[in-house]
């Protein structure tokens, strides 16, 4: 029954009735290939934008919300108080509003921290190491203006190293990376639109006679533009799909490489598993064929309608 129906339909209107001969005029070779290349680039730019955003967030929330305080001669008794200089500093820090946690690093942690610079024999060095206090702030913007003089009073020589300046610079860097990625996306979309417009123009020139015949038979501009747009949309969507799929392994590899910088532990993302891609990208990647389709539709419609205005 279904076969009979299909045969009847085939006789009435061969599947994909192509009165303008667009199957050859808008070839399924070059256009999808070029759009796939654009989609691939767009995927990389998108990944760049998402990556820069997550690094910026990580720096603001992680490194930005911490201070390092160095207390020289931490074991020495504090002036005018009982207890060591380190204890005085810790007590002061813990009383300060806006500080969530203040913790002195153990000797082992300190040795670990210095190992890259001083080698594995750190423990046996006879250098006088300062005590180091790691301070976590309630948030990166906490106002700690008067902290330095008060620490100086409690334990002279104490140094406060604020990561805020670096975080500010890195965040600005991440923002400009995002802006670059955004501009790359816009350029890629514009080039895709231009590629589709050029292919459509070539198709119009190749099928000029058929278009004039169909126009003369009373086809509206909308009808002719829709025939072209239907084909261009399908080809662009196919190209976008191929490009997005081709970009996936590259993005996974990049995400695996950058995971440690974004504060992910290797076991969180697994070794190159699909989980390393930020969820935003999982939403954006399927958007690429859709965006390509939309660009294909609009570029073809605009090009054909403008071209048709030369006919009476």
């Amino acid at each position, binding site marked *: 029954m279904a076969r009979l129906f299909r045969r009847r339909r085939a006789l009435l*209107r061969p599947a994909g009735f192509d009165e303008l001969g667009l199957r050859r005029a808008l070839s399924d070779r070059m256009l999808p290939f070029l759009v796939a290349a654009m989609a691939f680039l767009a995927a990389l730019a998108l990944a760049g934008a998402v990556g820069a955003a997550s690094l910026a967030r990580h720096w603001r929330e992680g490194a930005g919300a911490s201070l390092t305080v160095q207390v020289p001669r931490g074991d020495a008794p504090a002036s005018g108080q009982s207890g060591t200089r380190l204890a005085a500093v810790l007590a002061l820090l813990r009383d300060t509003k806006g500080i969530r946690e203040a913790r002195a690093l153990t000797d082992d942690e300190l040795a670990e921290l210095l190992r890259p610079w001083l080698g594995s024999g750190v423990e046996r060095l006879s250098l006088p190491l300062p005590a180091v206090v790691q301070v976590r702030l309630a948030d990166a913007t906490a106002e700690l203006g008067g902290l330095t003089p008060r620490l100086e009073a409690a334990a002279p020589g104490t140094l406060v190293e604020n990561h805020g300046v670096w975080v500010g610079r890195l965040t600005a860097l991440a923002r400009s990376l995002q802006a670059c990625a955004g501009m790359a996306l816009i350029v890629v979309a514009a080039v895709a639109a231009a590629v589709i417009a050029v292919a459509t123009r070539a198709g119009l020139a190749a099928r000029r006679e058929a278009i004039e*015949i169909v126009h*003369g038979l*009373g086809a*509206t*501009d909308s009808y002719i533009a829709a025939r072209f747009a239907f084909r261009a949309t399908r080809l662009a969507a196919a190209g976008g799909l191929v490009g997005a799929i081709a970009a996936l392994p590259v993005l996974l590899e990049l995400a695996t490489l950058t995971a440690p910088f974004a504060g992910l532990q290797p076991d969180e993302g697994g070794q190159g598993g699909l989980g390393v891609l930020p969820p935003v990208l999982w939403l954006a990647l399927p958007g690429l064929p859709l965006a390509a389709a939309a660009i294909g539709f609009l570029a073809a419609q605009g090009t054909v309608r403008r071209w048709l205005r030369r006919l*009476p």
Partner: protein
Amino acid sequence: MKRVPAARLEWQECRRDGTGSRMVRFESVGLRYGRAGQADPEVLHDLSFAIPEGGFRWLLGPSGAGKTSLLRLMYLAVRPTRGRLSILGADIERAERRALPGLRRRIGVVFQDFRLLGHLSAYDNVALPLRLAGRPEGQIRADVMEMLRWVGLLDKLAQRPAQLSGGEQQRVAIARAVICRPRLLLADEPTGNLDEVQAERLMQLLKEMNRIGTTVVVATHNDAMVARHVARSLRLDHGRLVSA
């Protein structure tokens, strides 16, 4: 020539509305090719005539007289450079561009060089105007088969134009021209590529259309044909109407 009974020709128009009794009216129409402002010579000058609904006209004149240009004005492939032109009751010189496709669908044209779509079968070529008019696929088949039977090409419906003889292509062209049952049917030297028998057969088809109420204009060189089928004529010479 066997007469085709009228009952077999009851296919539908793609659109119908009142057009008044003047199907075609030219008032001091001039036509100049090339872009506006460019000084190409005028190819048609001061044409004034009217053709009533249901009329038949020969369009005569030597080669280069302007017959094709006059037909192009009538099938809305060009707009007049000056004067007033009314086709199917619409003022063409003032009509908006988007009003023209609807008018074109009610005008059938048979070209000397057929202008069939080479990659489509005879069936699809004939079905094209119905599809352009948005007729549902299910309603197309009966009309197309009817037209192909009328022009005697039922057995060739799947052939492409390149697989058909000149006469067969011309019959596909006329089937396509009349499938929407046009109010106005124009033919530009339709017998130029046909032998005597085929030309006569085509004339019978055109007259059959005229008999059921279609206004018909046929441009031709074929004096023998004109002598055989007596009708009023428009005669052009050097872009001027010398008799109407």
